[in-house]
């Protein structure tokens, strides 16, 4: 063969479609557009190459839907210094994989400065919620000769970073948009070989330096990074950059890398809206260890140092443990004798994962779909926030079939590749790392302790009294900003209107003089439950002495602890101090927030009998002269911030 074969990044964690052409045509046979979209969303969960991605996108476009029930609409603008026409299809398809309906605006290449600065451009009409900067390092590289001194290189980098920050600021100010910046890809050939790293003006050294400085600036400005620099190191530069395509059409991202580019972008957009996965559910036999413990016994399973296969399974345990440390919840779902399975966690000397690491342990002979539902119920999280890892293709197919909202990675045959497969899938994409994340595992353990306390208590009242709870509350603080954003975007059950907010929106609400914000932290004698509730109130339109609860969220960790009553006591008191005489509040029903359908009634609100607003909300009203402060077992420990 004369030519080198084309290399493409693979999304190997997704199952391969059986007959994509037939499935696509069948998907479009449904009666109405929104049903077709559902079908296409299911199809987007398969491993799609370059051509399949374009086809699926064309099918999406032909439906012409700007919004659809069950899908989150997003307006994303790409500002680019190279041709990016091939990226929007991939972004839309990867969005569909997460039930995001992404409207993508991409400007002409190299026009990003004008697009941003000139208020008459179509970008301004489009008014993006998120702006993605997709820039090449070429401009900067062409300014710096190889012979440049350190100080000249520094100056050139400073200039570029300063300009970027100006553009970020402009995009943020103009659209109140969240900003994502693509990292720079090193497409340069070596000039000195390995010695490039010592030469400040050598292109690849420059790109590395640029990425470091970009990261610092982005962290400072609250900008998120789309790390394709890292992805191209993972897949090889040939998979991400193709000189031919650059010469033909000024494409910096190779077309065959577009599907993964879209996937990575959609992950961030989903994470911003709290749609990343939360819980890693692991099978045991031939997944966490080699062999079948029921047959082979504790001594017979393959695990740990001494054999390569044993180390491969141990590597998966280590990875799971690291995920746990960053706030991912771990659970076990295995067809096994519970006593034998638990014994491995207690007694096997090589086990890295121990029972306290596992928030829900389900080893039995029930169907796995039943156990997965039980895990979600016990942890009080949505079933769509689970990732199920199982070596058995039959179990995987069953779960995908009956619970399609659960992510089920297509594990490779060789356990040595398990960790890489999970890492590539990046199910737990984050946009922040909060102290709540750091302490989540401890909080789940503390909750188990509280449950034990509840079981031994004579009554609910005695249990709550025994907890010695206190609440710290106050307006939104800058220190807790990331957690508040996370709470509004990740909470699905106790969420009165399910309105989602970008980090920027929360920051601007917190600074509005007439808005009233409240955050609540609940402590008890077992520990700190963390910042678990937040509320946004604004003066009701045309009624200055009435505040409207725009949204109110509470973590499911503290359900049944009377916090909703104490929070309302506090809200009424604070609103009164601001001159209000009443509150109005909406409850917008979703498939997930039924648990609070009677919330406002139980808090003493009366329903407002007027035609339902267009969003299907139930409206509630509370006159302060009717409000009776509720007795709870929660004392005030002082104000936050």
């Amino acid at each position, binding site marked *: 063969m004369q*030519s080198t074969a084309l290399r493409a990044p693979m999304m190997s964690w997704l199952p391969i479609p059986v007959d994509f052409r037939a499935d696509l045509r069948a998907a479009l046979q449904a009666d109405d557009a929104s049903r077709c979209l559902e079908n296409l969303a299911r199809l987007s969960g398969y491993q799609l*190459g*370059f*051509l399949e991605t374009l086809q699926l996108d064309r099918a999406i476009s032909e439906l012409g839907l700007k919004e659809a029930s069950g899908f989150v609409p997003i307006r994303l603008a790409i500002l680019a210094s190279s041709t990016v026409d091939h990226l929007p299809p991939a972004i839309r398809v990867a969005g569909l994989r997460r039930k995001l309906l992404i409207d993508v605006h991409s400007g002409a290449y190299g026009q990003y400065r004008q697009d941003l600065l000139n208020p008459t451009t179509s970008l301004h009409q489009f008014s993006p919620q998120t702006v993605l900067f997709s820039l090449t390092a070429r401009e900067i590289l062409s300014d710096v000769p190889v012979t440049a001194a350190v100080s000249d290189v520094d100056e050139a980098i400073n200039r570029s970073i300063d300009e970027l920050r100006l553009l970020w600021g402009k995009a943020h100010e103009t659209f109140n948009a969240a900003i994502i910046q693509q990292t720079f890809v090193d497409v340069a050939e070596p000039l000195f070989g390995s010695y490039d790293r010592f030469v400040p003006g050598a292109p690849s050294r420059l790109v590395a330096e640029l990425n470091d400085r970009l990261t610092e600036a982005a962290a400072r400005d609250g900008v998120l990074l789309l790390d394709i620099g890292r992805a191209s190191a993972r897949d090889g530069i040939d998979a991400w950059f193709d000189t031919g395509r650059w*010469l033909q059409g000024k494409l910096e991202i190779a*077309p065959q890398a577009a599907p993964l580019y879209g996937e990575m972008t959609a992950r961030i957009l989903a994470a911003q809206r709290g749609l990343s996965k939360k819980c890693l559910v692991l099978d045991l036999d031939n997944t966490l260890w080699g062999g079948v413990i029921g047959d082979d016994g504790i001594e017979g399973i393959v695990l740990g140092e001494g054999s390569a296969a044993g180390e491969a399974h141990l590597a998966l345990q280590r990875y799971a443990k690291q995920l746990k440390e960053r706030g991912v919840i771990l659970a076990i779902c295995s067809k096994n004798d519970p006593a034998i399975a638990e014994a491995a966690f207690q007694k096997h000397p090589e086990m890295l994962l121990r029972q306290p690491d596992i928030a829900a342990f389900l080893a039995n002979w029930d169907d796995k779909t039943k156990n997965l539902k039980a895990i979600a119920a016990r942890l009080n999280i949505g079933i769509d926030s689970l990732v199920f890892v199982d070596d058995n293709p039959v179990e995987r197919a069953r779960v995908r079939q009956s619970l399609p909202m659960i992510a089920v990675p297509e594990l490779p045959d060789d356990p040595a590749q398990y960790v890489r497969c999970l890492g590539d899938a990046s199910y737990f994409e984050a946009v922040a790392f909060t102290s709540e994340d750091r302490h989540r595992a401890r909080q789940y353990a503390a909750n188990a302790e509280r449950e034990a306390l509840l079981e031994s208590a004579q009554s609910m009242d005695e249990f709550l009294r025994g907890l010695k709870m206190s609440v710290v509350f106050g307006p939104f603080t800058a220190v807790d900003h990331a957690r508040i954003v996370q709470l509004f975007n990740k909470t699905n059950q106790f969420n009165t209107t399910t309105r989602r907010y970008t980090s920027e929106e929360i920051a601007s609400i917190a600074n509005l003089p007439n808005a009233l914000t409240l955050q609540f932290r609940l402590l008890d004698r077992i520990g700190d439950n963390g910042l678990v509730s937040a509320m946004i109130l604004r003066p009701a339109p045309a009624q200055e002495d009435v505040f409207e609860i725009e949204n109110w969220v509470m973590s499911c960790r503290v359900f049944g602890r009377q916090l909703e009553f104490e929070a309302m006591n506090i809200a009424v008191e604070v609103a009164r101090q601001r001159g209000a005489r009443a509150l109005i509040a909406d409850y917008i029903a979703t498939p997930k927030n039924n648990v609070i359908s009677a919330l406002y009634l139980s808090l003493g609100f009366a329903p407002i009998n007027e035609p339902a607003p267009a969003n299907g909300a139930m409206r509630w009203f509370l006159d302060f002269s009717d409000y009776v402060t509720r007795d709870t077992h929660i004392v005030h420990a002082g104000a936050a911030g």
Partner: protein
Amino acid sequence: MTAEEILSAFTRILRDLLLNDSIVLTMETRREDIPNWDSFNYINFIVAVEIEFGVKFKVADIESFANVGAIITELMKLRK
């Protein structure tokens, strides 16, 4: 693979790409004969062919292919 077999694979790829099952390619078909086969979709077609057949065309050839037959001739050369 014969030229005929490659031609039928090309037809399938272009039908998929343009979501148009009525497309029929011959050795003599030129880009302008097919609706919507613009320069963007021409590159997409080339990329799809490169992925499917595991080859890479030379930049100069991509610019100068006169018709479908010319692409097939070059592809067969690359696959030797």
